[in-house]
C-alpha cells in the first residue's frame, strides 16, 4: 500500500476527527479565499467600470481629480486640440453638477446632472428605452436622459417635460429652472442604488447656469486610437497641452489603489495572515495529537521495515488530504460568503451598483492553492519530526508495559 492510500485509510479510520479537520480548513480556507478576492477586488472592478464607457484617458485641470478639483476652463478648444492629435480617436468634455428636478409644479428632487458634448456615438451610458441625445450640431436642445430611479421618482415618461434648476456652484445665486424633455432612460455605470441621475448637452447645462460663455468642463473623456494605446495618447496630450493633467485609466486606478482602496487591501492582508496561521495551528494540532495517539502503531510499522521517509510521507499525505479536501470545499463556501460580504459592503453610500469588492481572478485561485499547500507542508513539519525521530524499541516497550 502506498503512502497516499495509507494516509487516506488513517483519516477514514477516524471519521469524526477528520471531518471536523476538513470542515475547519474549509471555513478558514473560505475566509482566506475571500480575502484574496478582496485584496484586488475594488481595483479590478473599478478599472472594469472605467474601461466600460469606452474612454481610456481622463483629462482634468489638475491631478486633484474631477470631483472637488478645479474645472477646466476653455474646455471646447482644449477638447478640439486633443481630438485632433493622431493618437486620439475621440475627446468629449463633461460637466457635472448637482441639480433639482421636478415635474412643472411638482416637488423637486435632488439629482446628479451630467452635461456632455458628443462628437461620436461613444458615451458613458447605455440606453434602456427611448433614444439618445441628438447630435452635437443641435447641442443646445433641451433633451434629457434620465436613469430608471429618476424616472420612477418623478414618474416621468418619455416625452414629459422636466424642470431642472442647476446648482451652479457655491456663492452663485439660484437661477430659474430650465425645461428639458425626457427622450430616453439610460443606465449610468457610476450610479449607486439610490442615485437620481440625468444627462443633458453641456452647452444647455452651462446655459442653465448663465455661464457667460465660460466653456468649463470638469473633465474631458478621451479614447485613444487603436494601435497607439493610451500611454502614447497621454504623452501626446501632455506635449500638446502641458497645462492640463491627463491620465490613463490604469494610472487613475493605480493612484486610487495606493490611496483610497488601501483599507481593504490592508484588512485583506491581516485577515489572510490570521486565517493561514489559524489553518496551520488546526492542522498541526490535529496531526500532532493523531500521531501521539498512534506512536505504538508507527513504531510497529517502523519495526516491520517502513523507512523514516515512508512514515514521514504518510503524515505529509494526511496533511495534504485534510488541506486539499478542505481547500476544495472552501471554494464554493468562499463564493457564497463573498456574495454575502459584497452585499454588506455595497450598502455603503455612494458605491456604484456595478462596483464589486470581491472579484474573482485566476491569480486569486492560484494564490489560494499555493498558500494552502505551503500551510499543509509547514503544518506537517512538527508531526513529521515526531515520527522520524521516534525511538522504535523504547516506544514498543512502553506500549507493551502500559
Amino acid at each position, binding site marked *: 500500500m502506498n503512502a497516499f492510500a495509507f494516509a487516506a485509510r488513517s483519516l477514514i479510520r477516524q471519521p469524526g*476527527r477528520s471531518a*471536523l479537520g476538513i470542515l*475547519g480548513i474549509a471555513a478558514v480556507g473560505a475566509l482566506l479565499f475571500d480575502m484574496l478576492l478582496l485584496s484586488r477586488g475594488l481595483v479590478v472592478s473599478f478599472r472594469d467600470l472605467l474601461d466600460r464607457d469606452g474612454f481610456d484617458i481622463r483629462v482634468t485641470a489638475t491631478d*486633484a481629480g474631477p470631483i472637488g*478639483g478645479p474645472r477646466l476652463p476653455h474646455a471646447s478648444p482644449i477638447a478640439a486640440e486633443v481630438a485632433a492629435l493622431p493618437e486620439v480617436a475621440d475627446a468629449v468634455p463633461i460637466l457635472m453638477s448637482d441639480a433639482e428636478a421636478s415635474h412643472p409644479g411638482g416637488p423637486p428632487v435632488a439629482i446628479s446632472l451630467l452635461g456632455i458634448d458628443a462628437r461620436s456615438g461613444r458615451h458613458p451610458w447605455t440606453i434602456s428605452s427611448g433614444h439618445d441625445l441628438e447630435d452635437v450640431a443641435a447641442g443646445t436642445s433641451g433633451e434629457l436622459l434620465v436613469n430608471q430611479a429618476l424616472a420612477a421618482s418623478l414618474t416621468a415618461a418619455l416625452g414629459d417635460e422636466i424642470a431642472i434648476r442647476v446648482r451652479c456652484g*457655491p456663492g452663485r445665486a439660484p437661477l430659474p429652472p430650465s425645461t428639458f424633455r425626457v427622450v430616453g432612460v439610460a443606465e449610468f455605470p457610476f450610479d449607486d442604488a439610490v442615485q437620481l441621475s440625468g444627462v443633458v448637452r453641456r452647452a444647455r447645462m452651462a446655459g442653465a447656469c448663465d455661464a457667460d460663455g465660460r466653456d468649463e468642463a470638469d473633465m474631458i473623456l478621451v479614447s485613444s486610437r487603436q494601435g497607439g494605446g493610451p500611454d502614447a495618447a497621454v504623452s501626446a496630450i501632455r506635449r500638446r497641452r502641458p497645462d492640463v493633467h491627463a491620465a490613463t485609466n490604469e494610472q487613475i486606478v493605480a493612484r486610487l489603489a495606493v490611496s*483610497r482602496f*488601501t483599507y481593504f487591501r490592508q484588512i485583506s492582508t491581516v485577515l489572510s495572515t490570521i486565517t493561514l496561521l*489559524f489553518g496551520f495551528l488546526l492542522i498541526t494540532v490535529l496531526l500532532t495529537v493523531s500521531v501521539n495517539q498512534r506512536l505504538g502503531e508507527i513504531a510497529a510499522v517502523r519495526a516491520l521495515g517502513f523507512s523514516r521517509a515512508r512514515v514521514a510521507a504518510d503524515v505529509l499525505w494526511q496533511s495534504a488530504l485534510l488541506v486539499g479536501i478542505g481547500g476544495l470545499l472552501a471554494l464554493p463556501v468562499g463564493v457564497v460568503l463573498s456574495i454575502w460580504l459584497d452585499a454588506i459592503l455595497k450598502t455603503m453610500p455612494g458605491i456604484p451598483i456595478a462596483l464589486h469588492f470581491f472579484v474573482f481572478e485566476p491569480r486569486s485561485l492560484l494564490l489560494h492553492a499555493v498558500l494552502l499547500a505551503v500551510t499543509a507542508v509547514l503544518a506537517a513539519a512538527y508531526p513529521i519530526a515526531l515520527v522520524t525521530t521516534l525511538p522504535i524499541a523504547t516506544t514498543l516497550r512502553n506500549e507493551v508495559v502500559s
Partner: protein
Amino acid sequence: MRAATIAGLLAIALAAGSAFAGAIPADSIPTILVSRQLREAQGLAIGDIVSLSSDPTGAHPQPFRIAGSYEPMPNPMLLGASRHEVRLHLPDLMTLTSDETNPLASESVDAINVAVPAPTDAGALAQRLASRIPGLVVRSTSANDDRAAPFVVLERFHLAIAIVTVIASSIFLLALMLMLVDERRETVGILRLIGVRRRRILLHVLAEGVVVAAAGALFGIVLSVAFEGGINRFFQWRYDTSLVFVRITPAIALRSITFAVPLGVAATFASSWTLLRREMFLLIRR
C-alpha cells in the same frame, strides 16, 4: 480659521514666498496654520513666509506667514489621502478665492458652526432655524449623520467576518476537544467501572470546560490588549494619521467572553457526550 485642501483649492508656491519676505513687513503678513503632514513634506518651519494662490497655475499668489502647525482631525474617510492642508482666517481665504464676476462670493461660506448653551436644545434649534430660513440645511451634530453610514457598514462587515471566524474556531475547538476526550477514554471507563455516574463525570468535564474556556477567553483578551498598541502604531505609521484603529473596550472584552465561554462549554459537552454514551466495556477495551 478654515481648512482648505491645497490639492483642491489652493496652489502653494513655496519658492515664491521668499520674494515677499523683504517687500512686506512681517507683522502685516496674514498668518496661517499648516498641517503636520504638509510641514514635513515641504520642510516648512514656523515663521516661514509662503505664498498661496487659488489659481491651479499658481497665478496671483499672496504671502502668508506660518504661525503654527496642527495635527488634522483624524478622518477614516481620508485614510490614505495626503493631509496637505492649511488653515486660514476666513476673511483671508475669502479674499484669496474671491471671484470678481460673482459679488455673492464675498458673502458666502460653506457652513456656519453654531454652539448652543445647552446641547440638548440643538435638535429643537435646528428645526426652528430650518423652518425660518428656507433653503438652509440645519443639522445637529448629535443627530443621525449620513457621514457615519460607511462606518456602520464597515461594522457590519467586521461582524460578518467575526461570525465566520467564530464558526471556524468552534469547529477547531470541537475537533480539539474530541481528541482530548478520546485520550481520556480509558480513564472515563475506569471511573464508570468503580461506580461513578455519567452525570457526575459530565459535571466534572463541564466544570473543566468552563475553566478552560474562561482561561482561553481571558488569554485571548490579554493577547488582543498586547497587540492593540502595536497594531495601532503600525497603521498610524502606515497611513500617517493619529486615527485609532483598534480599541479593546470592556464591552468588547465582555462580548468576547460571552461568546467564547458558552462555545467552549458546548464543545466540551458535545465531545464528552459521545464518549459517555458508549458502553462501559467499550471504553476500557484496548
